[in-house]
C-alpha cells in the first residue's frame, strides 16, 4: 500500500530564521510528502514529542545558530531513549564541514549544507527511509 512519506521539519533552539525550513517544507510537499512544520524555537523535547505523536518517517532539523553540535545529537538521543529506532534523522543549515562527521556519528544520517539542490535531498529521503 503506497502511502505518503511523513516528515517533521523542526527548528530547534534559539534561531529565528525559517526561510530555509519553509523552502524545504514546500519542496517536500511538491514531492508528494506530508510535511509537519512545528514552527520556530523548539526544544529537543518538543520536537521528539511531535515526532512520536505524528509517527513520522523522517525528522528534518534546520539550524542556523551554530548550536547544531549540541541540539542535533540531543534530538537523536531523546528519540533513542523513547525507543524510536525507525525514524530517519537529517539536518541542514550553515554547518561547517568539520562538524559533519561528528554529527553523523551522533545519529544524524545526513547533513545538507547551503546550496544543496532540493532534488538531492528528496532522493536521499526516498532511498534511506528506515521503514516501508
Amino acid at each position, binding site marked *: 500500500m503506497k502511502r505518503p512519506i*511523513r516528515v517533521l521539519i523542526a527548528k530547534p533552539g534559539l534561531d529565528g530564521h525559517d526561510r530555509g525550513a519553509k523552502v524545504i517544507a514546500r519542496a517536500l*510537499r*511538491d514531492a*508528494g510528502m*506530508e510535511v509537519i*512544520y512545528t514552527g520556530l524555537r523548539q526544544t529537543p523535547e518538543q520536537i521528539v514529542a511531535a515526532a512520536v505523536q505524528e509517527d513520522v518517517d523522517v525528522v528534518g532539523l534546520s539550524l542556523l545558530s551554530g548550536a547544531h553540535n549540541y541540539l542535533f545529537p540531543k534530538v537523536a538521543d531523546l528519540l533513542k531513549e523513547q525507543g524510536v529506532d525507525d525514524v530517519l534523522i537529517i539536518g541542514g543549515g550553515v554547518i561547517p564541514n568539520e562538524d559533519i562527521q561528528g554529527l553523523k556519528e551522533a545519529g544524524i544520517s545526513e547533513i545538507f549544507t547551503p546550496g544543496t539542490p532540493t532534488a538531492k535531498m528528496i532522493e536521499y529521503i526516498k532511498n534511506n527511509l528506515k521503514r516501508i
Partner: protein
Amino acid sequence: MDGDLMSYSQLIEKMLAGDKRSCAKLITAVENDPEKAEKIIREIHQYTGKAHIIGITGPPGAGKSTLTDKIVKKLISQGNKVAVIAVDPTSPYSGGSILGDRIRMQDLALNPDVFIRSMGTRGYLGGLSKYTKNALKILDAAGYNHIIIETVGVGQSEVDVVKIADTIVMVMVPGLGDDIQSIKAGIMEIGDIFVINKSDLFGADRTALEVNMMLDLTMEMDRRPPVVKVTAVKNEGIDDLVNEIKEHLNYLKESRKLEERRKANIKLEVLELMEEQLRKIAISHTDSENKLEDEVIEILNKNKNAYEVRDKLLKGMGTHLRESL
C-alpha cells in the same frame, strides 16, 4: 499476516494503557491501510464512545488552530485529557501537504494529557480526511475524554464534520462579507456554537449582530446556538466559550439528542461501509470476465442504455456477492 495481527493486538494493549507511540502507530495504520483499519477498529470498538467530540470549523485564517490551543489549555486545566486531530489540505497535484496547525499549539506538545495529530485530507473533500473517523475512535479508546477535530479551512459547503462531532463550533471573523453570507445554506447551518474570533478588530460587533439576526430568523429550533465573542491570541472569551461547549453537551444529554445524533451517524457509517464493500465487489465482478467492456460498446452503439446494463450486471452478481462475503 498472523504476526501482523499479533503486533496490532500488542499495540492496542499498549495504547489502552496510555502509550502515545502505540496510539500514533495505530493511527498511521488506520490512515493508510483499510484492511488493517478494519482489524483494529473491530478490536477497539468496545472502548469507544466515551469522549465528547468537538468539531472546530471555519474559513482559512479564522484562527481555528489558535482557538483550539486555548480551548485545550482550558480543558486540561480542569483535569481533562484532550486529543486534537488537525486536518490540513492535501495537494491535488503532488499528493503532498504542509500540515502547520501544530505551530499554534507548541506548548502543548509535552503535556502528558494532550495528544495532537495532523492529517492531510488526501483527496477527500468534506473538510476532513476519509480516515479522521477511525483516528478519532483510536483516541477515544485511548482515554482522551475530549477530542477536538479541527477541519481544514472551509468555504461554504464542507460540512462533513457534523457526521462525527457532537458539538460544532463555527469560527467566524469580522470582514468576510455582508449579512447575505450569513443566511446562505451550508456551513452556517451546522454550528451549535458560533464564535466571532478576532473580536478586537473593527467590525466584530457588526459580524456578531448579523450572525445573531440570522439565528433569530430560524423559527423551528430546539436550541438557539449562542454567539460568543473571543480574541483567541489574547485568551479573551475562552472561559465563556468552554462553558458553552459544556452547556451544549449537557443539553444533548438531557434532551437525548446525543444518542439521536450518534445513532444517525452510526447509521451513515454503516451505509458508507456497505457502499464501499459493494463497490469493491461490483468492480471485481464486472472486471472478472471483462463483462463491462462488452456492454460499454453496446451502450456506445445505442443498442442498450446504461440503466439496462446496470440491472443486467447486478442480477448476474448475486452468487459473486455471496461468495465475497
